[in-house]
C-alpha cells in the first residue's frame, strides 16, 4: 500500500495561503450573505492559485477544526458572515453595512458543546490564531432580518452589499500574494 503524501490529500482550506471562508445558511434569508459572496467572487473574479474562496455554508466549524489540528495552514483566513448588531448599544449598524470585526472584540465563550452545531466559532477562530500564529480577518454584513421560516430571499440591501463585499475582499486579499505575507506578520 502506497500512502498518499500529506500534500496530496490536503484540502484547499489547509493547503492555500489565503483562505476565504464564507459562512451562512442559504435557507435563511440574509444569513445567505456569506455563500452569496463566495458565489460572486468565484463567478466573476480570477481567484489566484495561492488562495481559495469557499462556500462553507453551515459547516465552517468542521473546516476550522481541520485548520487548527493540521500542521499545514493558511497565512491569512478571511471569515465572511452575516451578523445582527443592529440593537447592540455602542455598535449600531445599518442593514447592508459591510465592516470588519476585530477578532478580539468577539468574546471567547466558556462553553462545552452539546454537538458540533453549537461549537463556538469565535473560540475556534481565536484558538486558530493562537496555535497557528496566522492573521484572521472577519468581514461581516449587518442583516436586515433573519426569517423565522425558511426562505432563500436575501433582502435588497444585503443583496447590494454582496457586490461591495466581494470587491473589498478581492481587492484587499486576493490581488497580491505579498499582501497576505505582510498581513500575517
Amino acid at each position, binding site marked *: 500500500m502506497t500512502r498518499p503524501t500529506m500534500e496530496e490529500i490536503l484540502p484547499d482550506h489547509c493547503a492555500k495561503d489565503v483562505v476565504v471562508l464564507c459562512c451562512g445558511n442559504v435557507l435563511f434569508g440574509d444569513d445567505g450573505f456569506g455563500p452569496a459572496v463566495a458565489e460572486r467572487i468565484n463567478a466573476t473574479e480570477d481567484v489566484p492559485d495561492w488562495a481559495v474562496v469557499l462556500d462553507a455554508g453551515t459547516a465552517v466549524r468542521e473546516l476550522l477544526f*481541520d485548520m487548527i489540528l493540521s*500542521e499545514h495552514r493558511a497565512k491569512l483566513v478571511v471569515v465572511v458572515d452575516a451578523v445582527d448588531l443592529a440593537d447592540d448599544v455602542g455598535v449600531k449598524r445599518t442593514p447592508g453595512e459591510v465592516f470588519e470585526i476585530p477578532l478580539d472584540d468577539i468574546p471567547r465563550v*466558556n*462553553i462545552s458543546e452539546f454537538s458540533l452545531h453549537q461549537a463556538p466559532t469565535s473560540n475556534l477562530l481565536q484558538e486558530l490564531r493562537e496555535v497557528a500564529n496566522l492573521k484572521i480577518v472577519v468581514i461581516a454584513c449587518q442583516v436586515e432580518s433573519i426569517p423565522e421560516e425558511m426562505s432563500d430571499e436575501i433582502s435588497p440591501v444585503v443583496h447590494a452589499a454582496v457586490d461591495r463585499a466581494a470587491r473589498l475582499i478581492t481587492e484587499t486579499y486576493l490581488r497580491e500574494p505579498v499582501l497576505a505575507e505582510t498581513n500575517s506578520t
Partner: protein
Amino acid sequence: MGKTITIAPVSRIEGHAKVTIQLDDAGNVADTQVNVVELRGFEKFCVGRPVEELPRIVTSICGVCPWSHHLASAKTTDVIFGVEPTVTGRKLRELCNALAFQEEHILHFFILAGPDFVMGPDADYTVRNVIGIAQKYPEIGKAVIRNRHLAAQMLGIASGKSIHPVTAVPGGFSKPLTEADREKLLPMAEETLEFAKFAMSYTKENIFPNYADEIASIGVIETGFLGMVTDDGTLNLYDGKLRLMKPDGTYEEFACEQYKDYIEEHIEPWSYLKFPFAKKWGPFSMDLDSPSGIYRTNSLARINVVDRISTPLAQAELEEFREAFGRPAQQTLLYNYARLIELLYNAELAVQLLNDPDITGRETRVPVTPRAARGIACVEAPRGTLIHEYEADENGMVTDVNLIVGTTHNNAPINMSVKQAAQTLIKEGNYDQGTLNRVEMAIRAYDPCLSCATHKLDGTLPIRIDIYGSDGKRIETLTNTS
C-alpha cells in the same frame, strides 16, 4: 415546589436548546425537560419547486450530515419518478455514504464525545476538547486530522464536492468513477481502514475500561430500537427495511413507506419538536419506571437490531460487543462504542466497494420523466433513521414534503436519559460543573442535531443555569460565559 435548574443556551434563530432540571424540596430531581429546536418552514420552502431540485436543496439543511439528506432525497426522487438506479449508480451512492460516515464518526468520536472520555468529565472546558487531546496525545491528533483529510479528499474525488454534494440525482449518480480515480482512492481507503482498526482497539484497551461505572450508570434507560437491515437482517446504512425491536429483543419489520403504520408522533406542550413513538406498543410514556412506546435510533440502535454485519472485522467487534453487553444493550454511553464499530464497518465497506468492478461502470443513471406520485425513502444517517417523504404533481413540481430526522426519533430517549442522569447524579441539591458535564455526556452520546440553522459568530450557545426557589423567585444564576 423545589428549585429549578435551567441550562439554557440562546441563539439567533430561536435555536434554543434548553435543559431544565426541576428539584423537589429535598433537593432531588423531580423532573427534567430537554427542548430541541426544529427547523421551521421547510415544507413551505419546497412546495412549487421541481422535485429533482430537492437532493441539492436539502444539503443546505445541515452542514454536518449533508450526505445523508442528499442520499435520502435522491432515493425519494427515485420513487417519485418510478425508477431504479443502475448498479453502478447505487454503488457510487453507497461508497459516498461509507466515506461520509467515516468523516462524521471520526469527527464525533474524537472531536465531540472523545474529549469527555480522554480528558475526563471533570477536566476544565479549556482542555476538555479536541485541542486538549491534540496537545496531550499529539500522535492521535495528527492521525485524526490526516484521516479526516483522507475521507474528505476521497469524497471530493468520488463526487466532486464534499460540503454541498450534488452528484446523487434521480435515477442514480451524475458522474462515473474513472479507473485512475479508483486507483487513487483505494490506498486512501485502505489507510482509513487501518485508522479505524487503531481507533477501535485503542479505545477498547485504553478508554472504555476506565469508564465502566459511567457506562453502567449515566443515562441508562430501557427502550426499544429502530434501524435498517437487509432482508436477512444484515446491517445496511443505505437501503433496506426497518426493524423495530422491543426492549425484550423481539421485533417487527416493515418497509419504510409503511412508517406511519408503526410510528406515531406525540406532542408535548413544552417542546416544538414532536416525540415519535411505536404506536403498537401502547400509549406514549416517558416514565422512567414504566416507559411505553419509546424507541431509539442512531449507532447503538443499529448495532442492537442487526443480526450480523457483512464485513469481517466489524462482525467480530459486534460479537465481542454482544458478549460484553448483551442484546439489546441499553447503556446510553455505548452509543460511542457502537459508533466505532460502524466506523470500522464503513472503512471496510469502502475498500470492498472500491475493489468491486461495478464501481467504475459507465452506466451511472437512468433517465427520468415527471409524473404525479408520492415517494417515501430512508437512509440511516449518523444520527439515526432519516425518512424523506415527498409528493409531486404531473409536472414534477413538489406539492408536499415531510422529513423525520434522526434526532427527532431520539427526542423522547434524550429526555429520559437526561432525567435518569440528573436523578442519579444530583442528590439533596448538591451538584457542580462536573455533575452537569456528566448530564451533558448523556445528551452528547446521542450526537443530537440541536439546530442546523444556528452558527452565531460570537459563540453560539452560552449556557445559563437559573435556579428557582419554591416561592418562584430566582435564587441564583450560574453562567458559563466568561
